């Protein structure tokens, strides 16, 4: 048996070597330039500006109309290739799209949109203001999976003439234009006869005004083929055909030439670096992990000194190095990530500082009286269970190690992700970590997450940016109340800057880190990939597939 044991080990080692060699064949040096921003690296200059065909990672995300896509994954960007919104987003901000211009009334409740003339649906019927009114009223009865608008915010929609439409709101909402920019308009002449759009799966369900037509969709195999809409009203379409095909391992498929765009793990960046064939760029940091305190259940966490001690004791840079292998950015206590257009660099930093954490806890009266290494006060120990998903255990272990040094005891509690989500929503946790995207969105999310004053817009948003239970801050609430009414962007930006400062002082939650995934694509195939100012994934931008001219000109 001894002999066979050795044979087993040898075989296992050979197999392991094979796998490692295959996965990380050029694993020479770690990259350190991860934090230099999204404008980093790559060899040659300009690649192909137009392409006959581009292949991308597929997978089934549902039939690409607003009511039948799946709630997870890039379904809504697949809808966006076919359907247009009144406004669109480029790298800098909101741009005119189906609406050429707009006016906002002084009280912030009336939005008048002047629509582009001569726009046609893909079945050649004209697009008019009636379609906009119809979409809103239809979606009050039939809620789309994504790309809808908070209908409870809207009082009514009026058609002024064929090319003018007016939205009347119940109360002012500063982020209304932003919401409009992902609000897909559907054709009245098709959908008015559809009683249940969630079961509407035939060809006419995917007729929009957008740059692409759906040529083929296969639910079973997760493949989509989009072809350019010859009658598109807007900029020229740069990629004639876009095919989404199923892949098992994205990077292998990319190396084999099956797809033309992929994300790259940090340890094999060298393979693509300084290679004239590829462009290698980081995504903006719009996806991240947040660390929550349950202040409702544990009143001692209401003490700001205790929360600040957590912020000093947890080493967020270490998390970026060890969990993300550099491809990330430590969290800002003002919440908005560095790449956010309204990020305020002038805010308290909270770099890892064990001494400061200890001082703060001492000041708050938490001392280790019984010598077990855990601080206590009035018989209560600073000891908590940290709930997270089973894939995030390593994050939990690192936090545990650091907090232990400050005298705070943590038990890592791995849950199935949906169970964790439910506990967060119900307030049934002690400490908790959760990861989600959307950190680049309109800064109004600071209000919906951290203000407990109720308003119509985004009041009870349940998904992603779940509001923080048990947190109350009067100063923040009043800033938030003026933010939601402020229509002047420059003034609103100032308020948002203030909001970040208040949050960074008060620490309702700790953003642990944001991810900055590396993207790679082949220059000779197509080089038109761009980021919308609010979103991390380049293949999700409509403008990535269009020639940057006219209203879509590069800014």
């Amino acid at each position: 048996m001894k002999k066979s044991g050795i044979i087993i080990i040898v075989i296992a080692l050979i197999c392991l070597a094979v796998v490692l060699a295959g996965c990380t064949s050029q694993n020479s040096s770690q990259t350190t330039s991860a934090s230099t921003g999204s404008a980093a690296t790559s060899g040659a200059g300009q690649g192909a500006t137009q392409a006959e065909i581009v292949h991308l990672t597929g997978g089934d995300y549902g039939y690409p109309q607003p009511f039948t896509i799946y709630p997870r994954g890039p379904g809504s960007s697949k809808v966006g290739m076919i359907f247009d919104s009144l406004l669109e987003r480029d790298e800098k901000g909101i741009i005119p799209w189906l609406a050429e211009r707009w006016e906002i009334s002084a009280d912030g409740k009336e939005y008048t949109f002047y629509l582009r003339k001569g726009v046609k649906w893909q079945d050649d019927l004209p697009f008019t203001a009636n379609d906009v009114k119809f979409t809103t009223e239809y979606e009050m009865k039939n809620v789309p999976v994504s790309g809808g608008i908070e209908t409870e915010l809207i009082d009514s929609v009026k058609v002024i003439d064929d090319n003018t439409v007016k939205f009347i709101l119940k109360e002012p909402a500063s982020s209304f234009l932003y919401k409009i920019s992902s609000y897909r308009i559907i054709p009245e002449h098709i959908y008015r006869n559809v009683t249940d759009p969630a079961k509407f799966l035939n060809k006419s369900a995917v007729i929009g005004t957008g740059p692409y037509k759906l040529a083929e969709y296969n639910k079973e195999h997760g493949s989509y083929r989009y072809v350019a809409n010859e009658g598109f009203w807007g900029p020229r379409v740069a990629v004639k055909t876009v095919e989404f095909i199923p892949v098992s391992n994205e990077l292998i498929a990319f190396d084999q030439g099956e797809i033309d765009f992929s994300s790259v793990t940090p340890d094999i960046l060298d393979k693509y670096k300084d290679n004239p064939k590829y462009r290698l760029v980081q995504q903006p940091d719009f996806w991240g992990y947040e660390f929550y305190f349950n202040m409702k259940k544990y009143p001692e966490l209401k003490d700001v000194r205790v929360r600040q001690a957590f912020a000093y004791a947890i080493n967020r840079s270490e998390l970026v190095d060890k969990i993300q292998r550099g491809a990330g950015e430590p969290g800002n206590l003002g919440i908005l990530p560095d790449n956010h257009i309204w990020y305020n660099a002038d805010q308290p930093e909270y770099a890892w500082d064990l001494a400061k954490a200890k001082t703060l806890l001492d000041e708050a009266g938490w001392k280790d009286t019984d010598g077990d290494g855990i601080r206590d006060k009035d018989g209560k120990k600073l000891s908590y269970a940290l709930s997270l998903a089973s894939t995030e255990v390593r994050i939990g272990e690192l936090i545990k190690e650091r907090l232990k040094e400050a005298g705070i005891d943590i038990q890592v509690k791995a849950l199935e992700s949906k169970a964790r989500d439910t506990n967060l929503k119900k307030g049934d946790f002690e400490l908790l970590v959760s990861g989600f995207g959307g950190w680049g969105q309109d800064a109004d999310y600071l209000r919906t997450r951290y203000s407990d004053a109720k308003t119509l817009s985004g009041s009870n948003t349940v998904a992603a940016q779940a509001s923080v239970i048990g947190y109350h801050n009067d100063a923040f609430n009043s800033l938030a109340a003026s933010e939601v009414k402020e229509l002047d962007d420059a003034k609103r930006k100032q308020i948002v800057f203030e909001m970040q400062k208040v949050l960074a002082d008060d620490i309702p939650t700790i953003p642990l880190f944001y991810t900055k995934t590396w993207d790679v694509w082949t220059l000779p195939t197509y080089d038109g990939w761009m980021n919308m100012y609010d979103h991390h994934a380049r293949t999700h931008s409509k403008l990535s597939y269009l020639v940057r001219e006219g209203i879509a000109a590069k800014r």
Partner: protein
Amino acid sequence: MNEKTRNTLIIRFVITLLVILAINFFLPRMMPGDPFSTTSSDVQGEDIVTMTEEQRQYFISYYGMDLPLHEQFFRYLANMAHGDFGQSIYYKIPVTSVILIHLPWTILIIFCATALSTAVGIILGLISARNRKKRSDRVMMTGLIAFSEIPSFLLGIILLLIFCVWLKLLPLAGAVTPFAHYAGVVDQALDIAHHAFLPVLTLALAQLTGVYLLTRNTLITVSSKDYIRTAYAKGLGERIVWTRHALRNALLPVVTRTGFMIGLMMGGAVLVETVFSYPGIGLTLRSAVVNRDYALIQGILLVTAVSILLCNLLVDQVYRKLDPRVSD
């Protein structure tokens, strides 16, 4: 089989089915969360849909989840009686369509893999048992045991690297070539076989050692029995004694095991389907659970449970053929 035993058998199956239906209905609903309150991504960078509380309430009532639980259950039973499995919450199409789209692929790879691993396992087991205590037996046994220690997803990745990346013989992912238009049925069958090859091989290799060891060990036990000595004494050749007398008796546990394995292989299929991005039901079940798609979980579990019941029934029948003592 007389009428009485047949009736008890039917009653037993009906009761089993009812219990399964109840478990299928209540278990998924006992998991924390609901299909519309996702607040975190499954993987880094994944987009998830944001919803207001009003929108969430809309979807809850759209899928009838605002009714009392017992009422939902009776509705479910009534719909089942009409053959209506309900609407998938995540996929937005009828549950039967989801199952019909994905189940055949899983059946294909599980069936082929079971056939392959059983056939090869029996042959190897026979060779090994006949050469017992010889060098070839030892080598085969150590090799296969070592092999079985490799987890099937790792095995899948190794095969993928060898056949798809280095040799470039086989496709990387999927069950068919995307957007393919076939010249004929043969063309299509070849394409499917081409894509199914590695998933089948991976699953089969993962099961092979079990069949091999069982066959070998039972054969060795059987070979010392009196009737084998008798067979030799009758002057039968070694070949006939091994195949007709020893193997036939040794096959009983192997058949039982194969029957049970079909259910277990659903688990292995999930891993293999993930590695090869194969559109089977295993991956679909996983996403149904992650997204709390109650209707779909119910449907898939029911189909799985019924097919395991049928497999057991089938095993009973094969058993009777192999061993006359079992049938009364």
